[in-house]
């Protein structure tokens, strides 16, 4: 496709204009985080006795990875069944599940809080993981069902002839074949769980169980806005974001394909 020179210039101008807007907040945060004390700001945050940085990052990793593993397992298995082994009523069950995608977490705040409390899971990892699994599984189920719908039945039939049971077909044939899909749904769930704020806010009071989203708010609560405090706060926010940005940079491709697969096909 040929393009006029003037058109190229205009397009770059538009891109650069918006790029500057998008970079501005990030650049501001990074540059101001070095104000006054330089890297000292980062050291102060890491050594803060009230917020154990590595502990908090570990918590977030633990919660997000657990959620991802559970979600990928139950939704791939469910998607396999809904797609390749439909049974009486499976279509209705599937639609009833997908309907839950329209339920905002916030609308069920009270029962979520109360139910987790009733099970004695307040202040536990499991208490955060279970609701995250519940609310992330639906979109991933949709992705897996669509994905399996696109796989030819012959793969399964060939395995059946060899006498493989359905779970063997799932675990030995389909899953090794679906590594990109595992990555997509896994990374998507990971990022959504990492960024979740409301669920931990409802479930956790114990600071040793705080994920990064709750810990970040600790630094915001300091009201005094001396330049020193502002610099430290930026440093804290950057430290809290770095792990998820690294995960993003590594998994960019899968993350984007997951989002588009979910949206274009639904």
């Amino acid at each position, binding site marked *: 496709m040929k393009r006029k020179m003037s058109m190229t210039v205009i*397009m770059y101008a*538009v*891109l650069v204009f918006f790029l500057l807007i*998008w970079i*501005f*907040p*990030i650049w*501001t*945060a990074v540059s101001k985080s070095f104000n006054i004390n330089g890297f000292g700001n980062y050291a102060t945050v890491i050594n803060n006795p009230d917020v154990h940085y*590595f502990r908090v990052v*570990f918590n977030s*990793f633990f919660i997000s*990875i657990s959620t991802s*593993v559970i979600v*990928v*397992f139950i939704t791939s*298995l*469910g998607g396999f069944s809904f797609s390749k*082994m439909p*049974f009486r009523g*499976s279509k209705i*069950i599937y639609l*009833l599940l997908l309907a*839950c995608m*329209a*339920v*905002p977490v*916030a*609308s*069920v*705040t009270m*029962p979520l*809080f*109360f139910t987790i409390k009733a099970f004695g899971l307040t202040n536990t990892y499991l208490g955060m993981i*279970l*609701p995250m699994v*519940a*609310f992330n599984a*639906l979109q991933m189920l949709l992705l897996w069902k669509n994905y399996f719908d696109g796989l030819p039945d012959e793969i399964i039939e060939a395995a059946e002839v060899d006498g493989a*049971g*359905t779970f063997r077909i799932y675990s030995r044939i389909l899953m090794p074949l679906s590594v990109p899909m*595992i990555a997509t749904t896994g990374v998507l769930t990971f990022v959504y769980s*990492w*960024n979740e*704020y*409301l669920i931990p806010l409802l479930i956790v009071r114990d600071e040793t169980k705080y994920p990064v*989203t709750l810990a*970040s708010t600790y630094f915001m609560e300091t009201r005094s*806005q001396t330049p020193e405090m502002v610099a430290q*706060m930026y440093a804290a*926010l950057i430290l809290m974001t770095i*792990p998820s*940005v690294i*995960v*993003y940079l590594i998994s960019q491709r899968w993350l984007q394909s997951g*989002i*588009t697969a979910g*949206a*274009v096909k*639904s």
Partner: protein
Amino acid sequence: MTTAVKISDGRGQGLPRDPSQDNDKHLQAHGHHQRRGRWTRFQPVLYVLPVVILSGLFIYYCIAFTVWASFTNWDGLSDQMGFVGMKNYTKLLDPSSVFWVALRNTLIFLVVTVVIQAGLGLLLAVILKERMRGSNFFKAIFFLPISMAPVIIAAIFRIIMDPNVGSINEALRALHLGFLAQTWLGDPHIALFSICAINIFEWMGYSMVIYYAGLLSIPDEVYEAAKLDGAGFWTTLFKVTVPMLSGTTNTLIVLGIVGSLKTFDIVMLTTGGGPGRSTEFLATYLYKLGIQQFNGGLSAAVGVLVLVVAVVLSLGQMAVAKRSGN
């Protein structure tokens, strides 16, 4: 260091293997007795059970609980729930109720963010699809905020939008545009739109990536035909591209509806719903009623109304899309 080791552990493990083998034998044994010998009857059901229980039942239980609690004077903490009939609803739907303010703010937010995110996302996707030099870099930057927690983004913007030490006003003054400087989050007429701006910063890349994928699915022949007909850039955009992406746009609108109804983090951490109630959202109102004011029944009633709004808007949008699609 410990965390790094943890990641590779968690990733390397992948799916649990051990239960699979037990299941396998167990199910195969049953398989032999089956008439068709193909799929045993209960295996498919067994496979959907985990997701049905952990996700479906959990959410439907929460909904049922919310509906029931909305007819009671529950405080949100104790087991005591006295039936009060429609009292919570009459209170909420009273013309002077904060509910209407929260609903209005949420709807304004919905329209502003969906329109700008979709419009800007489409514009950038169209440009990026030309695959000019550096387009992957641009795409990555626009998409980056999605990997950052809304909490962090809200926190950054809270300082940037500060009227005195904030970088936005500093930059405006440096550009001799000081008269444009605002109390971004403190002025009741502006705060809601500042929150919209933060949301657009966070989610525009999402629309962009989805439109980008949609654009790739439009066959080149369509554009060649348009070119032969002598259509220019804008004509092609509005007469060919936009109509062909209507399915994608529809998806974005439905996602936007659910997204704005659950918008909580950004508001709570920037304005907290203020000044006054000028940025109160349904989600923040519901949270405050239930968790901070111990009014679980009333909070549950807001939850039910949020669900009703979600269903009505989503179905309405799908109906409109269906009619215009045919």
